[in-house]
C-alpha cells in the first residue's frame, strides 16, 4: 500500500525553489477579497515527489509494458518520435493568441492535418476544435441539427442509434438536446435496411453508425442504408471509433456518410494518457462546411490565419484551437506512415484479430457468425452456465497472469461479452501468449465446480471493493 502525498508531508520541506522576486511587495488584495482560510498543501522534497510518482507509474499497466487488447479502444503503440516532436519548445512555448505571423508553423500543422484527415476519410472540410470522441459526436450532431434548422426543418430532432452503439452516442444526442430512437440489430449483428426504413420518418435528423460496428462486423448494407436515410431527408453520422480497421481502404465519405469524428488517440496512435487528453476532429461533406465551429483556419498567399467570418457556424466549442500537442502527434504519425503505411496498418490490425479468432473459436464461442475485421466479440454465456465462472472472473484471472483484460460486458446486447482488439502493433508472440493464457483459464474453469473464483495472487492489490466505494464515497484525503 502506498502513502498519499498528504501522508508524506513534513512541515518545512519543499520540492522547488523560485528565483527571488526583486520587485517591491504590493501588500496583497484588499481584506474584503483576501483569503481567510489557510491553504494547506503537502510539503515534500523533490526526490520524494519523484519517487512517489515513479512508484505510482510503475503500478499502472500500459502499452509499453504489454498487450492491452481493449475492444473499441485501439490501444496501439504510441511512437516515441511523436513524443519527441511534441516536446519541442517551438511547439510547447507558443501562446494561442500570438500574432499570426509568429505561429505559422502551428497553423500549418492544424491546416495540413485537417487536409490529410479529410483525404483519409473521404470528406471535404473539418474542425480540430474537439477534445475527444464524445465532444466530436456532440459537434457533429449540432452541425446536423443546425443544417436541418437552416432549411426550416425544426422538427428533425431524433437520432437513430443501433442497440450495440457506444454509450457516448445516446449521451451526446442528449447533450445536444436531441431525442434517441434505438435500432434493433438483426441476428447477424447488423442494421437491417427494412427495419431501419420503418423507423425513418420526418422527425429523424440522422442515423449514427460505427462501421465496422462495435461487434467488429462490417455493415455490408451501408450503401443501401445511406440511400434510404438520404431519401428520407436525414443525414448519416459516422462514429470513427473503429476507423483503424479500414484506414485508407474504404472511406466513410464514399460509403455515404455526411459527417464523422475520428479518435486520434485510437486510430492515429496518440497516447491515451490514462484517460486523456485525446482529440476528436470532426470532418464533413462540403454542404455542411458553413456550420463547422469557429474560427476557421484559412491559407492565403502570405500564410495561414484564423477567420472568424463564419456566420452559419454553430459557434465555439473549446476555448482555443483544440488539443494542439495531441493533434501534432497525430500529424507526425500520418506523415511517418504515409497513405500506404496507414492502409498496411489497417490490414495487419485485421489480420491480428482474425488470427485470434481462428485460435480462440473452438474454446469460446463468438457472439456472431459474420466476417470480423479488427476486433472480435466472444460470449462467455455458455461457460457461465456450465461452470458459474463469468466474464468478470475470467478478466480477473487474466490480470493475475499479468495481461490486461479485453473490454468486458460491452456491447450490451451480447451476454457475458468479451471484446478483443489486438491492434496491428502486437507481435505474433505476444498474441500467442495472450491467447494461450485465455485458453488455459477456460480449461481450468471447466475443471472446477461452480464455487471456483480465480483469486488474485500476483497483483499489487486484491479484488477492489467497488460497491463500497460508491455506497460511501471517499473522494479526497
Amino acid at each position, binding site marked *: 500500500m502506498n502513502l498519499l502525498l498528504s501522508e508524506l508531508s513534513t512541515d518545512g520541506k519543499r520540492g522547488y525553489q523560485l*528565483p527571488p522576486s526583486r520587485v517591491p511587495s504590493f501588500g496583497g488584495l484588499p481584506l474584503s477579497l483576501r483569503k481567510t482560510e489557510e491553504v494547506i498543501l503537502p510539503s515534500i522534497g523533490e526526490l520524494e515527489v519523484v519517487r512517489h510518482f515513479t512508484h505510482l507509474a510503475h503500478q499502472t499497466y500500459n502499452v509499453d509494458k504489454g498487450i492491452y487488447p481493449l475492444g473499441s479502444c485501439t490501444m496501439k503503440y504510441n511512437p516515441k518520435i511523436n513524443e519527441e516532436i511534441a516536446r519541442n519548445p517551438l511547439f510547447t512555448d507558443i501562446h494561442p493568441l500570438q500574432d499570426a505571423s509568429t505561429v505559422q*508553423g502551428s497553423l500549418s500543422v492544424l491546416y495540413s492535418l485537417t487536409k490529410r484527415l479529410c483525404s483519409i476519410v473521404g470528406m471535404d472540410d473539418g474542425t480540430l476544435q474537439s477534445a*475527444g470522441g464524445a465532444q466530436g459526436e456532440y459537434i457533429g450532431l449540432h452541425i446536423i441539427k443546425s443544417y436541418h434548422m437552416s432549411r426550416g426543418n425544426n422538427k428533425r430532432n431524433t437520432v437513430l442509434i443501433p442497440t450495440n452503439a457506444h454509450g457516448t452516442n445516446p449521451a451526446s444526442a442528449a447533450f445536444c438536446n436531441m431525442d434517441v430512437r434505438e435500432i434493433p440489430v438483426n441476428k447477424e449483428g447488423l442494421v437491417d435496411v427494412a427495419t431501419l426504413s420503418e423507423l425513418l420518418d420526418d422527425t429523424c435528423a440522422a442515423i449514427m453508425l460505427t462501421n465496422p460496428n462495435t461487434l467488429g462486423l462490417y455493415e455490408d448494407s451501408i450503401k443501401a442504408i445511406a440511400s434510404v436515410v438520404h431519401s428520407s431527408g436525414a443525414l448519416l453520422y459516422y462514429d470513427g471509433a473503429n476507423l483503424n480497421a479500414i484506414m485508407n481502404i474504404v472511406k466513410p465519405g464514399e460509403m455515404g456518410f455526411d459527417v464523422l469524428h475520428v479518435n486520434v488517440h485510437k486510430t492515429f496512435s496518440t497516447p491515451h494518457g*490514462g484517460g486523456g487528453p485525446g482529440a476528436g476532429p470532426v470532418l464533413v461533406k462540403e454542404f455542411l462546411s458553413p456550420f463547422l465551429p469557429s474560427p476557421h483556419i484559412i491559407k492565403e498567399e502570405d500564410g495561414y490565419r484564423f477567420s472568424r467570418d463564419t456566420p452559419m457556424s454553430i459557434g465555439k466549442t*473549446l476555448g482555443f484551437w483544440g488539443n494542439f500537442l495531441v493533434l501534432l502527434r497525430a500529424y507526425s504519425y500520418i506523415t511517418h506512415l504515409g497513405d*500506404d*503505411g496507414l492502409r*498496411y496498418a489497417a490490414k495487419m490490425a485485421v489480420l491480428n484479430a482474425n488470427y485470434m479468432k481462428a485460435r480462440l473459436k473452438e474454446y469460446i464461442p463468438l457472439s456472431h457468425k459474420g466476417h470480423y475485421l479488427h476486433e472480435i466479440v466472444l460470449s462467455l454465456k455458455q461457460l457461465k452456465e456450465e461452470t458459474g465462472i463469468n466474464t468478470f472472473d475470467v478478466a480477473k484471472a487474466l490480470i493475475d497472469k499479468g495481461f490486461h483484460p479485453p473490454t468486458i460486458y460491452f456491447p450490451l446486447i451480447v451476454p457475458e461479452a468479451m471484446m478483443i482488439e489486438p491492434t496491428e502493433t502486437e507481435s505474433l508472440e505476444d498474441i500467442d501468449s495472450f491467447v494461450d493464457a485465455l485458453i488455459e483459464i477456460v480449461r481450468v474453469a471447466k475443471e472446477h465446480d461452480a464455487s471456483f473464483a480465480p483469486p488474485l495472487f500476483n497483483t499489487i492489490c486484491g479484488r477492489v*471493493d467497488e460497491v463500497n466505494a460508491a455506497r460511501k464515497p471517499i473522494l*479526497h484525503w
Partner: protein
Amino acid sequence: MYTYVPHSDHQVQHMLHTIGVNSVDELFSHIDGVFLSSYEDDIKGMSEEEVRKYFHHIAIKNKSGLSFLGFGIYSHIIPSAVSAIASLPGFVTSYTPYQAEMSQGYLQAIFEFQSYITTLTGLDAANASLYDGHSAAVEAINLMCKVGKKKKKVLISSTLHPFTIEVIQTWADVHEIELIMTNECKGCVDVSSIIALLDNDVAGLLVQSPNRYGFVEDYSEVADKIHSFGALFAISSDPLSLALQKNAHEWGADIAIGDTQPLGLPLAFGGGVCGYMSVVSSLMRKIPGRVVGQTVDSRGNRAFCLTLQAREQHITRFRSTSNICSNHAHYALTSTIYLALLGDVGFKEVATQSYDKAHYLHSELQKIDDVVVNSTTPFFCEFPIAFQTKEKLEKAMNHFLNSDVFMGVPLFPYTHQLNDTATVLVAVTEKHTKEEIDLFVSLLKEVLV
C-alpha cells in the same frame, strides 16, 4: 514495410494459414469498393529521421518571445521534474483505469488531483478533469439546469472570458435555456443587477474571478440571494489565484470550475489545458465525468477505483450527467505533480510573486500620461491598459513585436464595448524578471514619444 508492425513475412504466412485464407486482402473481400493496393496519388511515408527534419522545419516557422499574453493561458515557471515524471510510460501509455487492480498508481494520482482541487476550492467533491475551463462552464450550467429541472433561465456575468460566453452560447443554442447577462460596473459584475434579475425560474448564476479583465470580484451577499430562489451559484477561477483570493467555499458557492493550465502546463498553442470542477456534497452524484474513490481490497488494504459510475455515459447512456468519456487525465496528473513539488509555501509564493510583479508593471505604467490603467479595481496578475485610440494601440503592439516582445491581448476582436477597442490586456507572472518588466515600460515610452 516497417510501420510499427512487428511481423515477419514468415509469421504472416503462418497466421494466414491458421485463419485459412491465402492473403490478407481476402479478409476484406466481402466489402464493396475497397482499395487494397497503393495508388499514384498516395502521399508517401517518411523514415523517422525524415519526420524529425520535416517537423523541425515546421517548428522554426513559429517564434517564441518575451510574452505578456494571458487571457486564460499563462506562462509560469515549470519545474524540470514535472515533465520528467509525467513522461513515464505508466502515465503516458495507459488507458482509463477501468481495471482497478492494474491501475492503482494512476487511480491514486487522480485521487490526489481531486484532493488538491477540493482543497483549493474548499468544496466537497472534485472530478478527475474536464476538457478546459470554457467547456467546464457548459458542464456547470448543464448541472444547474439538471438540478433546476423545469427552470429555464441561467444568469451569466458579462465579465466572463468572452470565449467562455461563446462556448456556453453554442451549447445553449440547442437547449431551451435563456441566458441572461448581468451588468458590470467598473469592470466587475454588478451585484445589484444579479439581485434584480433573480426569480424562481433562474437555475443558477455563473461568475468569474479573476474576470476577463484580470479583476478580482466581490461576491458578498450573492450566495444568500441566489439560494433564497433555490438556484445554484458557480464561480470560475484561475486556480493559482485561490492562493490569495477567497474561494468558492468562502463565498458560499455550490460549484467551482476553471482550468489548471497555470499549474505546471505549457502554453502549447492553447492545447495543454485541463478543466476542473468541484461541487458541494449535495451535488456529488450529479457531477459530470470520471471520479476516483477510495475503498478497500479483498486483503483489507486501502485501494482506489473509478466510482459513482451510474452517472456516466457507458452505464446510463441517454440519461447520463454528461457525454464526456475521454477527459484530460494526463494534464490533471501533470498539475498534481506541479503542486506536490511546490507545496503550500511554493504555491503561495508563485501567486504572490505574480501579483507583485503585475502590480509593479501597473505602478510604473501609472506614471505614463498617454495610457490609462485603472487604479481602483483590485486585480491578480493581469490588467487592461487603455490607449487613446485603436491606431495608437496597434502601433505600440507592432513596435513591441519588432523587438520580439508580445505586448498583450488586444480586446477589440473579442468585445463589442466601445471603451474596449483601444484596450490591451497584459499578464505578468513570477517568470518575468524585473528587467523584462522594465523593458516593457521602456518599449512603451519609446512608441509613445
